[in-house]
């Protein structure tokens, strides 16, 4: 038997090896077991939204938004929302159930896999789940003929980054949750406002500049929606008077930085919660 390196004393940064993959595989196996149940809502929801908001509400909207029709405008919003929900709920309610009720984490850390790897595996799975959901919605939006740029092929990669970000934010809440009802707070006070106020269903430029700035700094979905729309339609929406190029660069940097920060922070918080 080969002896692995001695572990360094506990630090902020996690100790991760390929074993993260083992945890991901576990969650993936469960997902494929219930694939029908998992896919159906992901398929139906965007169709309902496109019908209700795009066709229904959209018929009342006579003008265009920056040159695009209303139904075309909300397509990228729906993709982004699928990414956010997929990752956030996977790493809040679902991870909490595995951790607290099923004691799955306890069972895994009795094997050569350490707690940091369990959490990282959960986060990567959350990001994967978000990518799957986002890609399904992308396919539906495309089927409605609402994708006008080949850059849309990059959306799964963006969905993975966005998914990792929302998974990590969700996992931070899981680390703070003492019971499952706690998730009502982030769901209603953070996710729902974000769902509405991140340029998903109307362009943020019609709001006061203070709200635009707040959304830009605090709401990750703003960046995900902006970048997804740019990839779907080939152009970036304006915001707080920044040029499309600067806006694109800032959004990418913001998402990368936030995803990395919350990734490490959530593992640190979970370790602090679970290692007594």
């Amino acid at each position, binding site marked *: *038997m080969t*002896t*692995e390196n*001695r*572990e360094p004393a506990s630090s902020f940064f996690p100790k991760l090896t390929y*074993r993260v993959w*083992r945890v991901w*595989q*576990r969650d993936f*196996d*469960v997902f494929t*077991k219930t694939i029908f149940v998992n896919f159906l809502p992901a398929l139906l929801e965007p169709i309902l939204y496109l019908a209700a908001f795009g066709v229904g509400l959209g018929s009342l909207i006579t003008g265009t938004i920056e040159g695009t029709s209303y139904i075309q405008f909300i397509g990228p919003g729906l993709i982004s929302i699928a990414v956010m929900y997929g990752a956030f709920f996977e790493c809040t309610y679902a991870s909490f159930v595995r951790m607290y009720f*099923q*004691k*799955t984490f*306890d*069972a*895994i*850390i*009795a*094997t*050569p*896999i*350490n707690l940091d790897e369990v959490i990282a595996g959960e986060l990567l799975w959350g990001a994967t789940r978000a990518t799957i959901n986002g890609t399904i919605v992308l396919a539906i939006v495309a089927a409605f003929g609402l994708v006008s740029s080949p850059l849309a092929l990059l959306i799964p990669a963006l969905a993975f980054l966005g998914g990792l970000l929302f998974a990590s934010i969700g996992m931070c809440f899981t680390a703070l949750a003492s019971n499952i009802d706690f998730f009502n707070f982030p769901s209603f006070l953070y996710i729902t406002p974000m769902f509405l106020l991140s340029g998903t269903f109307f362009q943020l430029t019609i709001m006061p500049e203070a709200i635009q700035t707040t959304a830009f700094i605090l709401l990750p979905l703003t960046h995900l929606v902006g970048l997804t729309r740019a990839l779907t339609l080939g152009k970036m929406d304006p915001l707080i008077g920044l040029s499309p190029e600067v806006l694109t660069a800032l959004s990418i940097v913001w998402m990368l930085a936030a995803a990395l920060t919350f990734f490490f922070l959530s593992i640190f918080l979970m370790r602090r919660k679970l*290692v*007594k």
Partner: protein
Amino acid sequence: MNSSEIVIAAQNLTKKFNDFVAVDHIDFEVYRGECVGFLGPNGAGKTTTVRMIYCFLPLTEGSLSVAGMDASTQSRDIKKIVGVAPQEDNLDPDFNVIKNLQVYARYFDMPKTEATRRAMDLLRFFQLEEKQTKSIEQLSTGMKRRLIMARALINEPQILLLDEPTTGLDPQGRHIVWDEIRTLKKKGVTIILTTHYMEEAAALCDRVIVIDNGKIIETGSPQNLVKKHAGEEVLEMTFDETTLKMLKEELPDAHFEVYNNQIRIFTNQTHGSFERIARKFPGMPMSIRVANLEDVFLKLTGRKLRE
């Protein structure tokens, strides 16, 4: 049976949860091939000790070496050679019986074909072969316990940790688990078990460690501890002052215990002295039995409820 090779060595081992000292500076050793039982009332520190051995809990103080490796810095290597059957059911409810074992084997990097072969062997060994495609919630308590033990063995561990392996089982289920533990012992697996059942410890353990309030209060083979603390035989009868006085005159060397309207007399004199008493007090209801580990346990840890 017992070689002199030490597999687990704890020195000054201490675990604190905030201000509460769960394990209080204990020293113990476990030899290769031994079956050692940790006995103690609820909250004594048994589970905490076991959890430190498989690196689930970090130590607060002291040192702990498992198969020559340091529990504080080599947890991964330790966990590769240890099998754990925890007290609570943490089987994966998202998978069926055999998939539970296959997925667990994958955590140890076992290739799929080997994992399946091993899973089938274990299901056969634990008489769960027919349940392989059942979901976890369809299993009885006894089947779940056996599946947890099967899972603990998937990596062919050198050291097996069993935390209350038979709690909640019916007598049949308990005896199946006991037989399996004996078979594993014969194969040379070092076993540590915690239990509340004294007959279980007496039946399975080469040595027991009695722990209370986080401290080791006694250690030795079950037979020696019984001899040392409870003697050979116990006489039990209903308490009243005159009987007690007369008995004390009859048996000046015996140890008397009065509790709950019962007199218990422990003696080291092999056979005969209690029969004499029985003849002397004809018609008086009394029972004479062989002293056991439960007598020792209650003597050492007291009769007060802990929780």
